[in-house]
């Protein structure tokens, strides 16, 4: 940090509006922030808080009809609000780099990686010759941490993993040695261990070149760990700002306090069940992957997995993407058949059930899926959605079913008035409540929660977890809780099974796993939780 008179970037009273037919939605309201050279600043907030909009306003990349309707943005002595598009083009890329959120969709799938990097370099420095551009592109990719960059230049985005794509995007963002890099949720689509290496690398690069960074994230822990300064946004306004540790340890605004509290939730009191509700014994699942025309290669998604869940308790199945945890859930739900091994629910083997018996068993175990936007039929109203299991299993008369829907909505704390609504009108958290109500309609014993809170904002997530814990106590439910997010595991799980590459690498009570992990893989996962050490 150099001691300068003026900050590199200074935003004053910034207002961004999105006009619509009814007037305008104010997305950013009177935002102030300062960023000095070489400093990293994190903007933290839930979805819709205006954190991305603020960052996009800096380089005038507001989506749709959005426009800056007040305030000033001074960057390196120049005013950016009202600057012409030629002036902005001279700044974008060259002085301010941008790393977008989703590595999966931000690289053009029809062009090779090399072409896209070269394009960025050429745009920022049109004088370079073709060979110079190519040499520069290789250098950029190598700097971004891509081994044998020269060979990989000819490959296409689909041949790269998410982490590698994000490295490419970071490389493009930093290719012109900008003074400021804006990283919009650069790692939220990636696994925690990948996230850590990417962010470590980003920090190393920006530190070496004294680049300032604006890091946009929904994760307070990550912000505190990676940035010197935090700006907390809520509903378009800055509610709290200051040095990271100070904000984290001594939050003053109620919103920040709630955010910190949600991350610091105390581990739950362990439930110990008696009866075995679910038993998996040596379960494996092998898929055959289509290769060339008539060949297929076997792929083992789940390899020799065994565990038990006692009635009334929660088992958290933890693992990174591709670890096979969702496949285990699908097999348990009877949506996929295991290749070998046996799965029994209440002592009944579900592998060899007749269709009629499977139908009856379905009423006793129910899933709640990850994506609250995809798991409800958009053309069915809420009452019909929740009543579907009752109709399917021919439970009760019309009147009785309506009464049951009322009772279920009440259990998940939703008003009866939403029963005639359609899913598109509800927020993510409310949809997830509806999905939980539907899962509970038939009074199941086992609920499989597949990443059920991963897509929700932190505070909503805490609310849903609380609801789940409360329902478990009331109804003596058994949960299989599948997640990649170790931070929520402590709040809900009695036991944890850590999966890696189709196998369970560690299994035990939650406290043991968190306090004395036995395996390197588990330790690695725990260390990668952003801000883990800061918060505890």
């Amino acid at each position, binding site marked *: 940090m150099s001691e300068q008179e003026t900050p590199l970037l200074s935003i004053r009273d910034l207002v961004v509006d999105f006009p619509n037919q009814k007037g305008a939605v104010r997305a950013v309201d009177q935002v102030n*922030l*300062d960023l*000095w050279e070489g400093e990293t600043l994190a903007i933290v907030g839930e979805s819709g808080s205006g954190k991305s909009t603020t960052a996009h306003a800096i380089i005038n990349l507001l989506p749709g009809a959005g426009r800056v309707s007040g305030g000033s943005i001074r960057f390196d002595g120049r005013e950016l609000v009202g600057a012409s598009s030629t002036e902005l083009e001279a700044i974008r890329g060259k002085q301010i780099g941008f790393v977008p959120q989703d590595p999966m969709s931000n690289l053009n799938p029809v062009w090779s990686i090399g072409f896209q990097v070269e394009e960025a370099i050429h745009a920022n420095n049109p004088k370079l010759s073709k060979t110079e551009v190519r040499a520069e592109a290789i250098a950029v990719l190598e700097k971004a941490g891509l081994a044998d960059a020269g060979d990989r230049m000819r490959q296409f985005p689909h041949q790269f993993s998410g982490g590698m794509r994000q490295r490419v995007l970071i490389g493009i963002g930093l290719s012109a040695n900008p003074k400021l890099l804006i990283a919009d949720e650069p790692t939220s689509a990636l696994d925690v261990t990948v996230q850590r290496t990417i962010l470590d690398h980003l920090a190393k690069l920006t530190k070496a070149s004294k680049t300032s960074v604006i890091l946009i994230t929904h994760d307070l822990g990550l912000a505190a760990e990676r940035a010197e300064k935090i700006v907390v946004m*809520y*509903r378009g*306004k*800055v*509610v*709290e*700002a*200051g*040095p990271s540790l*100070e904000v984290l340890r*001594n939050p*003053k*605004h*109620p*919103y920040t306090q*709630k955010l910190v509290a949600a991350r610091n939730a105390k581990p739950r009191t362990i439930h110990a069940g008696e009866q075995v509700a679910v038993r998996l014994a040596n379960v494996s699942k092998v898929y055959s992957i289509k290769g060339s025309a008539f060949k297929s290669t076997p792929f083992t998604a789940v390899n020799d997995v065994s565990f038990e869940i006692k009635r009334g308790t929660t088992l958290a199945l933890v693992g990174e993407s591709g670890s096979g945890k969702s496949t285990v859930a699908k097999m348990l*739900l*009877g*949506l996929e058949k295991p290749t070998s091994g046996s799965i029994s629910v209440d002592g009944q083997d579900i592998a060899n059930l007749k269709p009629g018996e*499977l*139908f009856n068993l*379905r*009423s006793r175990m*129910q*899933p709640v*899926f*990850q*994506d609250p936007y*995809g*798991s*409800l*039929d*958009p*053309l*069915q*109203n809420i009452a019909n959605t929740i009543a*579907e*299991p009752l109709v*399917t*299993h021919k439970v009760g008369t019309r009147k009785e079913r309506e009464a049951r829907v009322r009772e279920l909505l009440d259990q998940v704390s939703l*008003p009866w*008035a*939403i029963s*005639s*609504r*359609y899913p*598109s*009108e*509800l927020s993510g*958290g*409310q949809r997830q409540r509806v*999905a939980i109500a*539907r899962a509970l309609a*038939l009074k199941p014993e086992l609920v499989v929660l597949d990443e059920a809170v991963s897509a929700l904002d932190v*505070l*909503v997530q805490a*609310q849903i977890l609380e609801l789940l814990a409360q329902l478990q106590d009331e109804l003596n439910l058994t949960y299989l809780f599948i997640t990649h997010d170790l931070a929520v595991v402590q709040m809900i799980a009695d036991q944890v099974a850590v999966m890696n590459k189709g196998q369970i690498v560690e299994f035990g009570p939650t406290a043991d796993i968190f306090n004395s992990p036995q395996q390197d893989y588990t330790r690695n996962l725990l260390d990668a939780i952003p801000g883990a050490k800061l918060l505890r």
Partner: protein
Amino acid sequence: MANRDEHYVAPLAETGMAEIDAVRISEKPTNLYLDAWRDLRTRPMFYIAGVLILLVSMMALFPGLFTQTPPNDNCLLANSNAGPTDGHILGFTRQGCDVFSRIVHGTSTSLSVGLIVTVLTLVMGVFFGSLAGFYGKWVDAVLSRMGDIFFAIPYILAAVVIMSVFSAYRNVWVISAAIGIFAWPSTARVLRGEILRVKQADYVMASTAIGVSRFRILIRHVLPNAIAPVIAVTTISLAAAIVAEATLSFLGVGLPTATMSWGNDISQAQADLRTAPQVLIWPSLALSITALAFIMMGEAVRDALDPKARAQR
């Protein structure tokens, strides 16, 4: 913020905490089709097309409301190809019949063919398209190849052949069947593609896990979510069917000359094109406007049903 390390806290009065995830129930209920309906009612194109379609439908159902002149009787050869006179605003055909009356009475033929073809393509297209898309595997392979065979034959050509073979039984039903049998594969293709997309949705898996039968999932969850593009395509293809009937009649393999239809009128008027062009122009105009009305309606419906197109307005 003069001091770099100041810990700023917003005044509480301005930034109070709202209830987390509160339910808004003041707004109107909405879903894809309700939204589309509300959106349609703001589109001028919908009203223009709607009025035209209404007018044409009235003509088809109650021709008596529009003209009292009989289309075929009392035709005087003395009036052959004569211009407009009092009570005969569009003049006379070669046979001395009233052009306006013939257009009005010919409407029902054109619309019936359009409707029957549309129902036929919709039934066949939805049946084959949904089976192929939803059940996949060999069902898909067989049905899709079957569709491809029909798709590969230009349907006008095929209809010409069929109509020639069934020349003894030419009526509205036969001509509709001849057009419809070769028009369904495009409907089926559109629907199959949509179903392949929709059946991957989590709510389909959720219903499967509840124990809902495959067929009921198809009817209740998959079809309603996949049918929107088909509705738009179908409205446009109705116009194509009307034009196809006129084409076949014009070529002399459509409806028998005794049946009143725009295609027949155009066909009969072509001999006098140079001397009395109006006799050909009026039924052609009726045909074009009707086709245009359905195409415009289809476009409006398609845009209204597409949330992306809606957002761009």
